[in-house]
């Protein structure tokens, strides 16, 4: 039993609720929201240390033992993602302080933001399939509010699509949960793993696993990403950055959890399919990223490429591939939030998102320019920045599993990523400066701090990878050895 596990869910929830009561006091809301996300991050770091020393931490809520009650379990994979979530959320929150505007603030922006984090953290921590559904819903409902908050025409149009898609996928999620409960008779992930291993993963269970794959692919944007470019470019920058940094990652986390802990017996069907989906996603995403001349479109298609690439590591089902995926997942959360923040800043400065209408920002905003350049290199995986190690390990993993085509596509698309992101850099920052500082539509005052924070992290993750590599290895080992998770849940 370790009550620390509930804190990443309860802190943002309680603080968010309290903030609803103090609707008018915006300053207080800013302080409380930043403080509670910092506290959540501190708990996540504590959990990481405990994972390192004592292995997987569990909490049987209400004292009801698994498999009858709801179990919370934090292994190193969860704790790493929790920590990264807090950092990304804090940066986006700092960015929102200056940019989100009074109207949205007075309509519960900060409470809803915290509820979103509640859902994300809960999804990372839970060890129960139905509770995962509940946490997904908490996260999704908050994201509906954040997406439509402000009520501009574009936001409302995209909200309708987004809500519809997610309602359908939530419905399929419930159907999948019902199926698996009918077949196996339990919803506790560890218990599921035991029962599926005992019964053997026959055709029925494999079919059910594919239902879940469809559900989480819709949420993660794996192949079924048609809703993503629209809905991620509609809301204001700070919200779009949170979505890009966190939401698809939760879907990916669920795919990882299910296909390493429960449905790992038929990799020639499920994991090969995930690999194929990942490859197609990477190719389509790369085509989108290269084709468009609009910053928002290029950035959202880059999110899609990242999803495909991380799934390639899972498809390989090897220790190298898993290590790479964990590394890349952390990198991806940070870097996607970062490029969305910088992209949004560029758009607010120039007043347009069309690449052909902007040029020469480097003269007026040198720091922004160089940070974008760093982020671009990290995104493409140039050493020694953060994306490099993940790319190396994932490629190694796919080659070890003899999926040469998958590794090859991964490498090819990273070139296209570099091209697409350099296109933004060259168009926006090079060339003749014809926007003087007075003519700019927005300013960078006060919003450089979160951008610098994330850029620093991207560099640090690359240069200081040795420092967290032991944690990442532990996470990858946990993913490859489901019996560790099972033992921790049933151990007490």
């Amino acid at each position, binding site marked *: *039993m370790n*009550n620390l596990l*509930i804190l990443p869910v*309860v802190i943002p*929830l*309680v603080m968010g*609720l*309290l903030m*609803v*009561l103090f609707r008018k006091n915006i300053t207080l809301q800013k302080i409380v929201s930043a403080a509670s996300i910092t506290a959540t991050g501190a708990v996540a770091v504590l959990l990481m240390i405990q994972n390192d020393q004592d292995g997987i931490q569990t*909490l*049987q*809520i*209400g*004292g009801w033992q698994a498999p009858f009650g709801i179990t919370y379990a934090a292994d190193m994979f969860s704790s790493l993602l929790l920590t990264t979530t807090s950092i990304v959320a804090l940066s986006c929150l700092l960015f929102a302080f200056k940019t989100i505007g009074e109207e949205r603030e007075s309509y519960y922006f900060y409470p809803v933001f915290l509820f979103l984090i509640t859902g994300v953290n809960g999804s990372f921590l839970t060890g129960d399939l139905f509770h995962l559904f509940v946490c997904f819903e908490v996260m999704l409902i908050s994201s509906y509010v954040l997406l439509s908050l402000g009520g501009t025409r574009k936001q409302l149009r995209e909200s309708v699509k987004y809500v519809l898609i997610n309602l359908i996928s939530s419905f399929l999620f419930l159907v999948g949960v019902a199926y698996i409960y009918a077949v196996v008779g339990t919803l506790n992930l560890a218990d599921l793993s035991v029962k599926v291993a005992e019964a053997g993963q026959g055709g029925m269970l494999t079919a059910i696993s594919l239902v879940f794959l469809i559900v989480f692919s819709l949420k993660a944007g794996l192949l079924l990403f048609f809703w993503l470019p629209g809905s991620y470019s509609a809301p204001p920058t700070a919200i779009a950055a949170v979505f890009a940094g966190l939401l698809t990652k939760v879907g990916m986390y669920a795919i990882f959890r299910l296909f390493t802990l429960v449905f790992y017996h038929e990799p020639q069907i499920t994991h090969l399919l995930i690999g194929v989906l990942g490859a197609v996603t990477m190719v389509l995403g790369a085509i989108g990223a290269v084709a468009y001349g609009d910053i928002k479109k290029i950035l959202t298609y880059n999110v899609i490429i990242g999803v495909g690439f991380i799934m390639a590591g899972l498809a390989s089902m090897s220790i190298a591939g898993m290590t790479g995926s964990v590394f890349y997942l952390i990198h991806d959360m940070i870097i996607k939030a970062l490029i969305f923040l910088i992209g949004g800043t560029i758009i607010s400065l120039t007043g347009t998102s069309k690449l052909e209408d902007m040029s020469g920002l480097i003269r007026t905003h040198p720091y922004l320019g160089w940070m974008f350049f760093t982020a671009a290199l990290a995104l493409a995986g140039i050493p020694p920045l953060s994306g490099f190690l993940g790319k190396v390990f994932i490629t190694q993993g796919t080659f070890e599993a003899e999926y040469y085509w998958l590794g090859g596509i991964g490498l090819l698309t990273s070139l296209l990523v570099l091209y697409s992101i350099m296109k933004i850099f060259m168009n926006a920052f090079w060339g003749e400066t014809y926007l003087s500082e007075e003519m700019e539509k927005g300013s960078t005052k006060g919003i450089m701090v979160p951008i610098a924070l994330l850029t620093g992290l991207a560099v640090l993750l690359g240069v200081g990878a040795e420092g967290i590599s032991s944690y990442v290895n532990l996470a990858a080992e946990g993913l490859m050895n489901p019996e560790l998770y099972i033992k921790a849940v049933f151990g007490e």
Partner: protein
Amino acid sequence: MKEPNDVILRSVTKVAVVIIFTFSINLFFSGHHLPGGGFIGGLGFAAALTLLFLSYDIETVRENISLDFKKVAVVGVLIAVGTGLGSFLFDAPFLSHTFDYFDLPIFGKTELATAVLFDVGVAMAVIGTAVTVIMTISEDR
């Protein structure tokens, strides 16, 4: 617009609301061992309020019950989570509950459970949410 003649509705409502309130409180307390509890009790309570809104108008009801139902919902969830947080003090798993028997003056030997506190929160959250939803829809006209 002509005022609708709803004497019968209003007279029935005056009696029915009291009955519904009593019944939902009964449902709420029976929840620990029998069918019932905070959720269903709260819904019954909200149904009675809705009946009041329908037979009278929102302003009249507001004058008599001047509660902000959004805040009722928030406080309800806070109470529910708060009872869970109590387990931190006793070093028990989150949301643990306990009960004991007490000799109370009128009721005699009574079972008091901490789960009832959680249920109070649930009931308030349900009442607050249901009434807020209904009032928001009615404002839309």
